[in-house]
């Protein structure tokens, strides 16, 4: 069984997306990167990100990640902000009762995007 299936697939993503996005918007360390944009589009983006991090189907390339975050890097997005997002991701899954071992796998997938997201 894949990681995505173990976590609960699309239903788990749907359950997680609002919880995760709410945590991010309440997190003073990073919420400035997420406000001032169309919330529906932003929620759809969060859903894409969570699907990818859960090991689900996606076609995101490193180039997409670079392009999509370049304007945020220009605003100062750095490792500490990336860490905060991963932390919120873990807390979201914890809240949904996902086992620690699976959360670690999700964090590891998210970690693979770090250099592209931060334009390194």
């Amino acid at each position, binding site marked *: 069984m894949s990681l995505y299936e173990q976590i609960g697939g699309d239903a788990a993503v*749907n359950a997680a997306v609002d919880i995760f996005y709410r945590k991010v918007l309440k997190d003073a360390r990073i919420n400035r990167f997420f406000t001032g944009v169309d919330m529906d589009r932003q929620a759809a983006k969060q859903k894409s990100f969570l699907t990818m991090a859960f090991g689900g189907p996606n*076609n995101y390339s490193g180039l997409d990640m670079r392009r999509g975050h370049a304007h945020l890097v220009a605003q100062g997005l750095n490792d500490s902000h990336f860490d905060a997002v991963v932390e919120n991701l873990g807390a979201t899954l914890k809240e949904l009762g996902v086992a620690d071992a699976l959360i670690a796998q999700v964090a590891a997938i998210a970690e693979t995007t770090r250099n592209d997201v931060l334009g390194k």
Partner: protein
Amino acid sequence: MPRITYEGIGYACDPGQTVLDCLTAQGIAVPSSCRTGVCQSCLMRALGGSVPEVAQAGLKPTLVAQGYFKACSCVPAEDLRVALPDAAGLKLAASVVSIEPLNPDIVAVRLRPERPLDYRAGQFIRLYRDAQQSRCYSLASVPHLEEDILEIHVRQIPGGKVSSWVHGQLRAGDAVEIADSAGQCFYVPGDPEQPLLLLGTGSGLAPLYGILRDALSQGHRGPVRLYHGSASPAGLYRTEQLQVIAATHPHFQYVPCISAGAVPSGMRQGNVLEAALADQPDMTSWRVFLCGHPDMVQEARLQVFLAGAASADIHADPFIPSGAPIAHQP
């Protein structure tokens, strides 16, 4: 093999091929990103034929109700006629039935289109002054209550080319042109017990007035609360009608809010969003409709979401403030 018709031309869709792949293979530029049914970048609208359920999974009910689907997830089983979501609606002629002042700045314009318009209360139409100048206005009318009459609320914007024309020159009996309805801010039946929050300022009452009556007439049973904000009592309108609706529907509450100066009895002092959140600090399970000044709408979206409302339950048309002019020209 199903055929996909786009802008009047039919394309054969290979077995197992998605609408997105079929059209892009023909050189048609359909925006897309994840291609796995998640990001909703490739939304299209089915104008004819029905799409498989999986192509609408995860979409807001308001989008499903209008035939929107994800082109990347749609392997059609039958012929489809499709359009991109921002394809401009067709123009149609309408005659002005009446123009009635609602307050010192806002008039209600009633229009009779040459043919019945397929719309939902809370969506907007485009009103043309001439070929170059047009603005979008939200519909306060309800299709099954007002029959073929459309009602919009037009606020006089200082220097506004269309609103000044409506206020200064347009008369009952005049012929005008409008374009088809659009927008995601409307009531969908299916969850009649869900509490509804309707929050607006100024002529943002127009869509809320339509959505309110649409929901009640479709048998909505859960609590419905309408907060209408204005700087002064003179800016409020339809207060008597709303009080009558409240008197005859115990589950509906009308809360007029005054943000500056003296506040008459029966009205609330302060900002409309603050008043609503003070009354309902926990918005979990609420469905929310927001209309009015774009800054207010954006702040309200954020605050009601943080207060627990699900993102799929928050309805607003962020780029086209109801009743107010939009900057771009068609």
